[in-house]
């Protein structure tokens, strides 16, 4: 029997560490207790998995500290039926059952802090196979057959980059993992590193072998402290076992590993900016060509891939490239991991074969919109992506097809929005982000993002002017054309897609000074419905602006000149008399 408590960052934020300690306190035999990483069912955290002697799983969800004693007692008596009320429901179980996990195949099933767990799950077998039976060219060919494309967002064929780095002259080459997962709303890479760090290491070692690199570096963003701790431990364990270091597994291949923590700059997710940062400089992108495969880190041939890209490599080597390419569409092979969040009933990590639709992910697996509100849009690809409306829910998940909507596949962030989300405000939110994160090197991005933000701010503040939409569009196309790197080139995407699919909201903000989603405070008018108001005066007492007046037991009213639209009156009114228009 084993008891496993999920301990990814989400689980810990939900209280999983406290649950673990509480269970440990009450257990007589503590050796049965261990941890796992991110199971990916964030909406059910904290999760406690109990495996019986036949390895049959009883999954307990939303467990809190008070349940610990009951759990320990049930295990002691051998009577797990007392835990029925904590058991996962069959509907919620479908969240995982409907997925096809390759990159995430060990997440939530092994202890990320124990290499033995990884090894006994076919861990490092792919590396052994590569070193004993395959040449670097064989490895590149297998990756080519698989059709694996960069999972960081660009979707560029992985084999091509590896081949280019392999063919570059010189003995000093570098294999770099981009773990600077900066897209707000994305946490797929964090989950892989926290839950299955050895899979990442193994994928990187195979990549290093393929290109001829002797040094592998993982650039992890500073905001992921647990991922850094777990990866550091995994590297030490791998070194002790001889998977990292000199003459790995008795071969001629040697490779060292190190971690470099980022320091908080979204632009460092761009590969040349990442390299600049690795070199200790400001993370400002370089002109390409030359591409990193030719001149990257210290101007030596370097290959940079995303965490999820590497997480697929060992599976491809063990099962063959054809098995991977048998899944997906003509243009997009294999699976993709998505971080499904926002106004969704079941939020977490979803890995599915390319070719499924957005509807499959959001409604079939995600359970649809929280509180049964109506779906409005899904934002994909972070600040580089776009908002896809309800009429396009049957869009197939495929690099080209998603690109045709104006959005992008992106790294995998999928933020779901309902009717209460203002799309103009969303565009402003993303521009606020990109304007702050712009490195400042090129005029188009540095000044262009600021100008777009200024216009969007005026619009949401009720100061939109005739011609603003056309001006925004003109700016967008100009910035896309002139920006130096992907950050600037894609910064206009949220604006362009929201104008394309939600133009009427922009028109409403500009011409009528109204926010249809009732989110933009400056465009709201608070009033009291005299038919519902009982004259209790609570709103008047709460109002920080002294804007509400009236007589007790008679209807109160709001002076709109004084009203600062803080919403306090609405939140305290017990009679629903405060209305927002």
């Amino acid at each position, binding site marked *: 029997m084993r008891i496993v408590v999920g301990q990814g960052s989400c689980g810990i*934020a939900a209280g999983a560490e406290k649950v673990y300690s509480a269970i440990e306190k009450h257990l007589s035999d503590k050796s049965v207790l261990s941890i796992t990483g991110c199971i990916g069912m964030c909406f059910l*955290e904290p999760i406690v998995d109990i495996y019986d002697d036949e390895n049959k799983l009883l999954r307990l969800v939303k467990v809190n500290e008070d349940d610990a004693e009951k759990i320990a007692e049930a295990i002691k008596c051998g009577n797990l039926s007392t835990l029925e009320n904590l058991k996962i429901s069959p509907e919620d179980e479908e969240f995982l059952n409907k997925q096809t996990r390759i990159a995430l195949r060990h997440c939530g099933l092994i202890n990320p802090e124990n290499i033995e767990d990884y090894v006994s799950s076919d861990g490092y077998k792919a590396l052994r196979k590569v070193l004993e039976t395959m040449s670097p060219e064989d490895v590149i060919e297998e990756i080519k057959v698989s059709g694996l494309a960069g999972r960081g967002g660009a979707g560029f064929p992985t084999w091509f980059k590896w081949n280019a780095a392999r063919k570059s002259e010189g003995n000093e080459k570098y294999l770099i993992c981009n773990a600077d997962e900066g897209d707000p709303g994305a946490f797929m890479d964090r989950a892989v590193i926290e839950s299955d760090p050895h899979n990442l290491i193994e994928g990187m070692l195979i990549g290093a072998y393929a290109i001829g690199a002797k040094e592998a570096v993982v650039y992890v963003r500073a*905001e992921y402290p647990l991922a850094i701790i777990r990866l550091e431990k995994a590297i030490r364990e791998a070194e002790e076992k001889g998977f990292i270091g000199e003459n790995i597994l008795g071969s001629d291949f040697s490779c060292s590993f190190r971690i470099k*923590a980022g*320091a908080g700059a979204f632009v460092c997710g761009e590969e040349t900016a990442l390299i600049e*940062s690795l070199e*200790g400089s400001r993370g400002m992108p370089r002109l390409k060509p030359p591409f990193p495969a030719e001149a990257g880190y210290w101007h030596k041939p370097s290959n940079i891939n995303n965490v999820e890209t590497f997480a697929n490599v060992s599976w491809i080597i063990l099962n063959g490239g054809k098995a991977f390419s048998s899944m997906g569409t003509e243009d997009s092979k294999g699976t993709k991991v998505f971080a499904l969040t926002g106004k969704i009933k079941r*939020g977490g990590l979803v890995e599915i074969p390319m070719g499924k639709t957005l509807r499959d992910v959001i409604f079939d697996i995600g359970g649809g919109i929280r509180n049964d509100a109506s779906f409005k849009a899904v934002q994909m690809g972070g600040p580089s992506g776009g908002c896809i409306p309800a009429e396009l829910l049957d869009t197939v998940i495929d690099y080209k097809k998603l690109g045709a909507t104006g959005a992008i596949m992106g790294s995998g962030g999928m933020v779901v929005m309902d009717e209460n989300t203002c799309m103009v405000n969303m565009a402003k939110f993303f521009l606020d982000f990109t304007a702050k994160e712009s490195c400042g090197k090129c005029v188009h991005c540095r000044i262009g993002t600021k100008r777009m933000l200024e216009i969007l701010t005026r619009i949401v503040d009720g100061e939109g002017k005739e011609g603003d939409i056309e001006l925004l569009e003109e700016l967008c196309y100009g910035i896309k054309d002139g920006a130096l790197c992907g950050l600037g080139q894609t910064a206009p995407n949220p604006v362009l897609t929201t104008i394309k699919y939600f133009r009427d909201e922009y028109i409403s903000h500009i011409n009528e000074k109204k926010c249809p989603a009732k989110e933009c405070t400056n465009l709201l008018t608070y009033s009291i419905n005299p038919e519902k108001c009982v004259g209790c005066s609570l709103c008047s007492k709460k109002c920080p602006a002294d804007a509400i007046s009236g007589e007790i037991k008679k209807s109160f009213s709001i002076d709109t000149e004084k009203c600062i639209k803080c919403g306090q009156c609405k939140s305290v009114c017990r009679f629903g008399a405060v209305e927002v228009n």
Partner: protein
Amino acid sequence: MSCCNCRKNDLSLLDEVLEKYKNVKGSLITVLQKAQEIYGYLPTDVIYKIAEEMNLTPAKVMGVATFYTQFRFKPVGKYLIMLCQGTACHVNGSERIEKAIKDELGISDGETTDDGLFTLKNVACLGCCSLSPVMMINEETYGSLTPEKVKTIIRNLKEGEK
């Protein structure tokens, strides 16, 4: 207004870090990170010391330090509240949480309370999106926040200080 950067700091605390890294090319950011771990922020005299030991101009060091949001140039309170500004948190109401913090402590982004206990910093996505809105206070993460919950958390921390 006190000029906290004029305070003399014990620069010998940097010796071990500088010994290890000063001749390792590309390690400026690592040195700055270690320095911030020691002092809690990057005081001016520390910047000058790093520049001197690593054979760089102070302008170059400041140029790198100011590029990255992780680096602070003023001391922070005992409790550093990092409020996530990610998309999921935004969609699920992080603005209300920021307002609640302002109501409770009287501070905005980048400010510290007069008693030096709390600093608020709006930060980029923390990657706990399913529990949005999320904040971290020092090493601890708090999810599924509501304005009431945030005020309770802050009040509990204040209580603990008494």
